[in-house]
């Protein structure tokens, strides 16, 4: 019998191999309940201000379910980036590592069941002095659409667009005259690649939208991001959105956001005001302000 004929036996063997592979892959990722046991482990490793993140990203809902708001609050889950975190607790499965922590120093690694927990240190953490999104109150901020004041409401009607709709219009916001969507308030948009970004909603109106923070602790720069809701930006409707930043009446920079710009960073130097308190004004405008679900995030650092 030619030996080559024995190769036919590979076919049924392949069937058995596929069965084995099925059981291997089906049991590889932990169920959501397993994430509940992570809490005490994370508590032992984490310090105040640490970022807890899950990788691969698709497993994050399980981690949020298992760890809850304490370890994965909105401000971390929908962070602008990782630059201001001194340390991160990376929870990973399937031997994955978070791309965003590349270059961070690994302090410790341990495994727990199907999880790997790593503590990583940011080699150069930024120290924000003033996060604008944390100061959206009438004490810190005045908003105008053109020359008209946008009144602060503590209990505005909350709305959200459900499927293919807009981000949540929050209860507390500076509502401008005209359509509901022209306001300044905190929300979360689906930015580039549908990633969540906690930011300041600033849909441009028919006149420039002026956002004036009265007493800002200044540092070497104002750094931030601009974004459009990914789903809405893909409509390709509406024009570019311009964000201008002034400090004490001096224009320090402008950035223009177009449909496919994603979560776009900007940095404007403010060294001459470093260590002082100054007035910072953001002006948002667009020649075609239709369907511009624009949002931005910024801090001084």
């Amino acid at each position, binding site marked *: 019998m030619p030996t080559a004929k024995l190769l036919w036996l590979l076919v049924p063997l392949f069937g058995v191999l596929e069965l084995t592979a099925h059981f291997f892959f089906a049991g590889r990722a932990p169920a959501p309940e397993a994430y509940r046991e992570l809490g005490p482990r994370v508590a032992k490793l984490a310090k105040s201000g640490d970022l807890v993140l899950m990788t691969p990203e698709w497993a994050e809902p399980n981690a949020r*379910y298992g760890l809850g708001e304490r370890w994965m609050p909105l401000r971390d889950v929908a962070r602008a980036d990782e630059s201001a975190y001194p340390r991160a607790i990376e929870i990973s499965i399937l031997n994955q590592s978070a791309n965003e922590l590349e270059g961070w120093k690994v302090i410790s690694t341990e495994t727990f069941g199907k999880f790997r927990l790593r503590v990583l240190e940011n080699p150069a953490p930024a120290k924000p002095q003033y996060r604008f999104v944390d100061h959206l109150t009438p004490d810190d901020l005045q908003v105008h659409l053109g020359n008209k004041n946008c009144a602060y409401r503590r209990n505005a009607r909350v709305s959200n667009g459900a*499927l293919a709709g807009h981000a949540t219009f929050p209860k507390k916001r500076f509502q401008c005259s005209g359509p509901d969507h022209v306001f300044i308030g905190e929300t979360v948009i689906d930015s580039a690649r*549908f990633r969540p970004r906690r930011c300041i909603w600033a849909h441009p109106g028919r006149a420039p939208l002026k956002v004036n923070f009265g007493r800002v602790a200044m540092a070497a720069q104002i750094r931030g991001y601009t974004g459009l809701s990914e789903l809405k930006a893909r409509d390709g409707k509406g024009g570019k959105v311009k964000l201008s930043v002034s400090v004490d009446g001096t224009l320090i920079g402008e950035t223009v956001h177009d449909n496919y710009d994603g979560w776009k960073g900007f940095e404007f130097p403010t060294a001459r005001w470093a260590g002082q308190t100054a007035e910072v004004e953001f002006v948002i405008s667009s020649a075609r302000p239709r369907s511009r679900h624009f949002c931005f995030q910024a801090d001084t650092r």
Partner: protein
Amino acid sequence: MTAEGDSGPVGAREPSGPVQLSFAQRLLAHRAMDWSIALALAGGYMAALLLTVADLGYARDEGFYFGAGKSYARWIDLLFTDFDRAMLRSSVDRYWGNNHEHPAFIKTLFALSYKYLYLKWHWFSEEGTAFRFPAMVMSAASVSITYLWGSRAISRTAGLFAAASFALIPRVFYHSHLDCFDMPVLSMWLLTSYVYWRSTVGGGLPWALLAGVLYGFFLNTKHNSWLFPGVLIVHWLVMRGPRVGRNLKVGHARVPLALFTMAIIGPVVFYLTWPWIWFDTGNRLAEYVAFHTGHVFYNMEFLGETFFRPPMPRLYAWLMTAGTVPAITLGLFLLGSYRALKEAYFDVGAGVFARFRSRRALGSDARRHKSARSFWLLCVLVSYAPWISSNSPIFGGTKHWITAYPFVCLLGGLGFDWVLREIRSLSSAPWLGRIAAPAMTLSCLVGPLAMTQNSHPWGLSCYTPLVGGAPGAATLGLNRTFWGYATGSVQDFINDKAPPRARAFVHDTALQSWDMMVKDGRLRKGMHRQLGVAGSNIAVYHHEPHMLQVDYQIWTDYGVVAPGHVGHHNGVPIVWVYTRP
């Protein structure tokens, strides 16, 4: 592999010499046995579907077809009580206008099942199951037809393997439950093909007439039927070969009778069984064609990208097939296809691209085999053909080309038969002959069985080991779910945690589908369902990347990011539920 191993065409019947057959052998040889096996397969599959149907939430489109079915049932009532009024245009428009962008045949069956099996005879306690029943029957029938064709054109063992491997494609099992068109159109394609083939291999007029009638119902099931003439014409050309041109020249082109019956009877049946097109026929048919040729593009994730509009990825159909159909089934399909081409078109043992086989060289059995196998290959190719274009939509995932799967499995049966013969020829030891078939069957079906069992009730989230299962597919960025049916998998949590008179945000679940879950007692009564997050106090989220905005709406509206419950498939989150603090 050598030519010595080729003991004749795969699937050729054993020579019928004056051999003494035992009673059992005679019984097994009898066609009645094939029909018994076919019925047993259908019964078994039907039982599996009925036993598992209650675990499966209602998909978005099912909700729309419930409404259409009820509307058509009211017209049927009118037909029996006031025939003249039922025939009026106003009545037809009123009752058949519902969901008129899709043909009526299968929805009429949904209506009849609802009217008789649920309302009148109380066969089902769940209205939704009554609506799903016709498609389940047609799915089970597809398993039987696959077996019958395989056993007739290859061998009984091959037919059994083909039928079982078809039934055990996880996505086929999922779609087989639904009150939708996908499995019915697969069933109609397969049945019409089988009857057409029978008509061309000696079946004569009755089979040809039946093919004509069936093609009418096929046309009235779904627009996949528009592709079918392409199969028939190419098949005819392939089977007649170069003689077609010569025959045409002398005006004697021996066209199969069934082609005429399908061209004539088919459209008549289509017209008669779809009342919507009885009036303003031209415009309504044009509207129907325009709806499907210019169908809106819904979103679909593939390899981490969400595709909103063309150009769609050309790899989509191939990679999704590889990632969702068990690899052993696909491997045997490739072997079977190779064998079919080799036997039918090329000299056995002389290489794939050797000289084309002379038709005269093929005996009548071989011609019959060639006819069936060519037909299967063509059905596979034509079912996939639209996805060669990057303009074809991909939003429905694998169901777009699901009509190819029984033919994939029939060719898989041919591959199975070939491998089995080769393994048996390894030794003349009797024990090998005895155990080869059961061992081979077990080893080739146990994987698909385990995958299918594991896939329920997450049919659209199921991926094979080739892409690392569901976790691997999630890492690759393949779609996790769509259609909002996964609400069925979190119903217990909703029933348990929703406050009295809760306002539930249903996300991608159609309101009609939600309502049916309430009617069937799966979801608690007294909850108000709504399409917006604001004002709700319990919210369901079905994951697709382009839907993530909805997840964030819930976070910011409810003030929490931690879901109260996560429905998952093999650790991959598919659907999650939030409760307002």
